């Protein structure tokens, strides 16, 4: 049988490692817990010469048997996910406000704050939290998830568009400062308090520390500011109408 070894857990097949990683992630296991579960199997198989499937059974069965403590799944609790979503909510609000500011600048008017914008913000963040929370459903039922997800997303955006009633109109300078503060604040908040990108960590002595995802985490925390600058520069210099 042709088997491909995993590059780090060298006693294990890559596919078995990938399957265990996915199944444990679905159960809400942290990267540390997944790394520990894989390191145990790798060490056992390296000594016994057995294949993981032979010694531990199918990947899904092993992943289901791994004993997860509360601390192993804390980062995936609803409270933790809602906490982690606050910086994104602030960043998204800042981006939306910045786009409204550009529009108001081009039409020389005050910046409208609409109820639809609030619905859009909360709806998109709620859908994002739900997608992370029910990642297992997304993976095991991709078509159904895509249909339901697209319908919900379209509904939220549709509500945002049709709900044009205004909460207030804010002078452009004040709105622009607010947008800037929200965007920068989101990046700082995400960097300081947001969860580090959770990658699989091998607990064994001498195992290389995962580093590649730090840059990804940094970019993610400042994503709304980066997107706003990119999109804003396009909108600003493209003549309206």
């Amino acid at each position: 049988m042709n088997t491909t070894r995993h590059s780090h857990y060298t006693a294990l097949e890559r596919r078995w490692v990938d399957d265990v990683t996915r199944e444990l992630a679905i159960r809400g296991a942290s990267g540390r817990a997944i790394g520990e579960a894989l390191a145990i199997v790798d060490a056992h198989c390296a000594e016994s010469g057995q294949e993981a499937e032979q010694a531990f059974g199918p990947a899904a069965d092993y992943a289901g048997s791994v004993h997860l403590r509360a601390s192993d799944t804390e980062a995936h609790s609803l409270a933790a996910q809602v906490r982690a979503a606050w910086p994104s909510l602030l960043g998204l609000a800042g981006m939306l406000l910045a786009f409204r500011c550009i529009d108001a600048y081009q039409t020389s008017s005050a910046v409208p704050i609409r109820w639809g914008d609030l619905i859009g913000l909360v709806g998109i963040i709620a859908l994002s939290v739900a997608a992370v929370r029910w990642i297992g459903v997304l993976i095991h039922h991709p078509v159904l998830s895509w249909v339901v997800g697209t319908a919900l997303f379209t509904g939220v955006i549709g509500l945002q568009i049709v709900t044009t009633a205004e909460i207030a109109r804010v002078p452009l300078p004040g709105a622009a400062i607010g947008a800037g503060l929200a965007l920068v604040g989101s990046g700082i908040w995400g960097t300081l308090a947001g969860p580090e990108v959770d990658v699989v960590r091998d607990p064994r002595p001498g195992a290389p520390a995962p580093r590649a995802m730090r840059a990804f985490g940094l970019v993610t925390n400042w994503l709304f500011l980066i997107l706003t600058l990119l999109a804003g520069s396009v909108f600003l210099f493209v003549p309206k109408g």
Partner: protein
Amino acid sequence: MTEANPYPSEWLRGVLALAVQRFLAAGPTYGYAIAVGLEEAGFGTIKGGTLYPLLARLEEAGLVTTEWRAGDGGPGRKYYALTAQGRAAFEADARSWTEFAHRVVDFVATTPSTSGGPS
């Protein structure tokens, strides 16, 4: 039952935690050594998917502590050691199990009468 597992799995389930603690009572050791030791002791082949979750439960219950140590040229090994609480629990469980086992042996070794149930 198979050659690798000579006894029904439900028998093993009842005694496996005690057998693992008995193995750890001799000193800290790692998972594969426990699996081999149990097999040599006649418990049959213990799958990793059975042994390691059991060890994790013992750890969470405070009966066992763990430590990753560098391996000899290979990947590191996770060592398991009985805590003082674990040792006390093992000694108490071992006494209870021995008493229970004697009762079972005495009972099943007695030839039942052919007259049926209690009169």
